[in-house]
């Protein structure tokens, strides 16, 4: 399983990317989707998820919608216009970071190969 510190640094990017693909999601659904996509390799803890969702909401990148589901209230998150713009920026940033890390780990790899 990946280290929590590594996940924490990319949590916002993960949330934004998932919401870009799924239109709207609720907290628990996000944790399950990440677990499913990574075959349990990455587990988002609740302790990190909700503060991250609230932070993205405060930054205006996410908007919320309250819905009644099975006699309880569910809060759905979706991307705002600013959030949609931010996804590509965050993904490019992460991609560049991963490439840089690969160059450090494998100095023999040529950057022009785009590995």
């Amino acid at each position, binding site marked *: 399983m990946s280290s929590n510190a590594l996940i924490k640094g990319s949590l916002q990017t993960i949330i934004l990317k998932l919401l870009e693909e799924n239109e709207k999601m*609720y*907290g*628990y*659904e996000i944790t399950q989707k990440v677990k499913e996509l990574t075959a349990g390799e990455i587990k988002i*803890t*609740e*302790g990190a998820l*909700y*503060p991250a969702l*609230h*932070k993205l*909401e*405060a930054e205006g990148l996410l*908007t*919320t*919608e*309250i819905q*009644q*589901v*099975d*006699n*309880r*209230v*569910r*809060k759905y998150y979706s991307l705002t216009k600013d959030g949609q713009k931010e996804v590509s920026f965050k993904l490019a940033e992460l991609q560049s970071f991963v490439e840089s890390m690969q160059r450090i780990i494998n100095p023999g790899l040529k950057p022009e190969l785009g590995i």
Partner: protein
Amino acid sequence: MRQLNQSELKEIQLAIFHKEITSAEVLAEVYDHYVSHLQGFTEKEFASQLWELEQKFTYAYCHALQSKYNKMVREDIGKTQWQVLRKYFCTSRWIYAVGILAVLYFIANQTQSEKEVGILILSPLILLTMIWFVFIWRVAQKIRPIKRTFKGIAIPINSSSATPFSERIYLPVLLAQVLIYFPRLFDFGIDFNPILPGIAAVITAVMTLYMLSLLEVWKIKSKTALL
């Protein structure tokens, strides 16, 4: 995925009740997380899974989450109102602001007696009070499903957005009190009577714009928050 029975739901509610969460938004989110998670397990696994959730959603964690959420909502309402107020003075909406000021200037010129000045200042305050009553009723309607879930629990549940919004409704009423009573406490030796209608018009204009901006914030936020 299975439907939880009444005693299981009661157990979840009791576990969450011990966390003393008062924010309707946080409460709903935590409750939904618990129920969604536990629906994926059998009746036999229920107790152990609930215990696991309890280790994650501790009292301290829930209160930190609630406190940060309340702070965020407060800042967001303030920021939104400021954006709305700034919009009134944008080129596209300047006619709107000028229109209100012109009407008030006309009224101020017609205002002669102290009683008329009082009515002029009081009118937006009366409207604000009426807005407050409607607001309280609307919030109660919106958080009713959450309150119903946690029925019988002696913790006051309220929308995180309601308190900062209510405070913004009280603010002009308190300021008006200060403006009315402060000059009476001290004798400044200035005769305010000739400029009183003008001062009243300015105060009314500011309060009217403030009230309209607050209504617009309510309209914007009611789409996404429990307002």
